C-alpha cells in the first residue's frame, strides 16, 4: 500500500480524519520552508501538501499568489522542490507528501523524468490543478508507472454525470473543493458540506479530504469529522506572511508561529470524532 492509503487507513482505525497542511515550497526562502516541512509531522500534520511555485496560479487567491512570488524570488524550481522532499524523506519515511501545482513547470521539466524523479524523491501523489480528466493522458500513464497517486479536485460544479469520470481518474484520495472559487477566499457552510460529502460517498470508496476555505481549528475539526480529512492552506500561508519582516524575510519566530498554528489545528482534528 502507498503511504497515502496507509495513513488514511490508520486514521480510520483511530476513528478520526486527517489534517492535511499546505505550504508553498521556498516561501519565503528554502531554509525556512524546509524547517517548516520538517516540523510538520511533529506538530500534527497527517498529510503534507507542498505547493510548487508558479508565476500564474490561476486557481489560487491573493495569499498563495504572493507566496508563489516570494518563492520564485527565492529561487524556487521544480528540481529544488524535489530536493526539499528528499531532505524531508531522510528523516521521515511515513508521512505522505503530495505536490500541488500547475502543469507548465512539469512539462518544462519533462513529464517522464519528473514522475520518475518525484517518486524517487519520496513524493506520493500529485495534484495538478490544470490537468482535468479530459487531459489525463498527458501524465496519467507516467504517474501510474512511477507509483504516484493522481489526486483530483472535485468541485461543487462537478455534476452527477461528470462525477464518475473524475473519480475514475483519481487515486489516493479525493480533494473536495468545498466552494466555487479560488483558494482562501470564502468558506462552505456545515450544511453545504453535510450535503456534498454523502453525494461523493455514494460514488467512491476513496478517502475524501475537504479543502478551500478551511481556516480555523473548529472548521478543520468539522471538515475532518464530516469527511476523511481537512486541508488547511491559506490560513497557514497567511500566518507565515504575517511573520515576515518589511523586506519579506523570515523572522526568528516564523517557523514556530506556523507550527504552533498546525498544533492547534491538529489538536482540534484529533479531538473530533468521525461520523460513522
Amino acid at each position: 500500500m502507498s503511504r497515502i492509503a496507509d495513513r488514511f487507513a490508520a486514521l480510520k482505525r483511530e476513528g478520526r480524519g486527517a489534517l492535511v497542511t499546505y505550504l508553498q515550497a521556498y516561501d519565503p526562502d528554502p531554509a525556512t520552508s524546509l524547517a517548516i516541512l520538517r516540523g510538520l509531522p511533529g506538530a500534527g500534520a497527517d498529510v503534507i501538501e507542498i505547493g510548487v511555485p508558479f508565476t500564474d496560479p490561476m486557481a489560487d487567491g491573493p495569499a498563495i499568489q504572493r507566496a508563489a512570488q516570494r518563492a520564485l524570488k527565492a529561487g524556487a524550481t521544480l528540481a529544488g522542490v524535489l530536493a526539499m522532499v528528499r531532505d524531508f524523506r531522510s528523516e521521515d519515511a511515513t508521512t505522505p507528501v503530495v505536490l500541488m501545482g500547475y502543469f507548465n513547470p512539469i512539462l518544462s521539466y519533462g513529464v517522464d523524468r519528473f514522475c520518475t524523479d518525484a517518486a524517487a524523491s519520496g513524493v506520493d501523489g500529485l495534484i495538478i490543478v490544470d490537468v482535468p480528466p479530459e487531459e489525463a493522458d498527458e501524465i496519467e500513464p507516467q504517474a501510474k508507472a512511477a507509483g504516484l497517486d493522481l489526486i483530483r479536485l472535485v468541485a461543487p460544479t462537478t455534476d452527477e454525470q461528470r462525477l464518475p469520470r473524475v473519480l475514475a481518474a483519481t487515486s489516493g484520495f479525493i480533494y473536495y473543493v468545498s466552494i466555487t472559487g479560488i483558494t482562501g477566499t470564502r468558506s462552505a457552510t456545515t450544511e453545504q458540506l453535510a450535503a456534498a460529502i454523502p453525494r461523493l460517498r455514494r460514488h467512491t470508496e476513496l478517502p475524501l479530504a475537504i479543502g478551500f476555505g478551511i481556516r480555523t481549528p473548529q472548521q478543520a475539526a468539522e471538515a475532518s469529522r464530516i469527511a476523511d480529512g481537512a486541508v488547511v492552506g491559506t490560513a497557514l500561508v497567511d500566518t507565515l506572511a504575517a511573520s515576515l519582516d518589511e523586506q519579506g524575510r523570515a523572522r526568528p519566530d516564523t517557523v514556530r508561529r506556523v507550527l504552533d498554528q498546525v498544533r492547534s489545528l491538529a489538536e482540534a482534528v484529533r479531538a473530533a470524532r468521525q461520523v460513522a
Partner: protein
Amino acid sequence: MGNAVNQPLPNSFRQGPDSRGRFGPFGGRFVAETLMPLILEVERAYDAAKRDPAFKAEWQRLLKDYVGRPSPLWLAQRLTDHLGGAKVYFKREELNHTGAHKINAVLAQILLARRMGRKRIIAETGAGQHGVATATACALFGLQCVVYMGATDVERQQPNVFRMKLLGAEVRPVTSGAGTLKDAMNEALRDWVANVADTYYCIGTVAGPHPYPVMVRDFQCVIGEEVREQILAAEGRLPDALVCAVGGGSSAMGLFHPFLDDASVAMYGVEAAGRGLDTEEHAASLNRGRPGVLHGNRTYLLQDAHGQIREAHSISAGLDYPGIGPEHAWLHEIGRVNYVTATDTEALDAFQLCSRLEGIIPALESAHGLAQVIKLAPTMAKDRIIVLNLSGRGDKDIFTVARHLGVEI
C-alpha cells in the same frame, strides 16, 4: 459532437480543432475542475447556437446595423506608390463601431451568453479594445459588465478606461504580476470560478480553453470572408499576401482562416519584437518561445528554463501577451503561415507613415502589421496584391505615441 465532423480532412488546413479542441498538439482544455463543467457548457451552447439560423440572423443584423459591416477594403494608393511594389489594400476593421475587430466576436459571445441565461459578463483586456467592445455590447443588452485590466495597461490606456466606465462597465485594475494582459486573464478566470452560476467569460482572443479558440476564430472569420468577396470584386482574383499583427491572434485568424486552403495566398503574422528579439523585452511567443500550457491551452509561450512564464513587452498593450492562440502555434509548426516580427520603433514609424500618407491613424497593434507591409511590398512586383488587416484605430494610442516622440499633450 460526431467524430465525422471533427476528423481533419486530407489537404485542408481548415478542419481543426479535433473533438478535444486540439490543433495538432496545441489547444486543449487545461483548466481546473471547478471550471471544466462551465467550459463544457459553453461548448454545448456554442454547438447549438451554430446550428440555429436565428442566432446567425440576429448576429448578422447586429454586424450590419450596429457595427457597420461590411467594413470597406481600401486601396491604399499613396502608400502603394510610396513603397513602389505590390498594391496594398487595407481591410478597414478600424471603422467598426468601437474602433476595432473585437466587436465582431463580442456580439456573438454576448448573444451566446444570453442564450445560456447569464446576466453578468466578465472580460479581460489589454489595450482596452476588447474591454470597450464588451462594455458596449453589455450596455446594448443591459447586462452587468466587469472588465479586468492590468494596472500597467490601465495607466497607458486611460482613454479606453474612461470609455468603459462611460458605458457602464466596472474596470478592475489587476496588480498581480506585471499588471498586463496575462495577469488580467488570470484574474478573469478566478472571477469566473467564483461566480459560475450567473457569469459568462467573454474572451477577447483565439486563446484560452477549448472551445474559445475555435469559437472566437469562427466569429472573426467574417473579416476574411468579406475580404475574399471584396478583393474578387475589385481585382478579380485572390490576394498574394495577407498580413496581420498577432498578439493572441484573433484578427489574424479571422483574416487568414478563410484563405488557408488557397495555396497561392502567402500569410504573415507579425509578432511584437518590442525592444528587439535579442533583448528580454518582446512579445514574440512563436519566434522566441516554446510550447507550454497556460490559460487553458497548450501553445507557444515566453517562459524561462523552468517553465515559469516570462513577462512580455510591447509598446502596444494589445500585443503584450506571452502566449498566442493554439491554432497559430500549429500553423507556425506546419509552416502554412510565416510569423515575422516588428519592433516598437518599426511600429512607431509605420504608425506615422500611415497617418501622413493615408489619413488613417492606425492602432499600434495594426502598425506592427503595417511595418511588415513596408518591408514586404517593395520586394513584390507591382501587379501583386497585399491585404493588411487594419484591425483597429489609433485614437487610443496617441498619448503613448506622443510620449515616445517626446511630445507633451
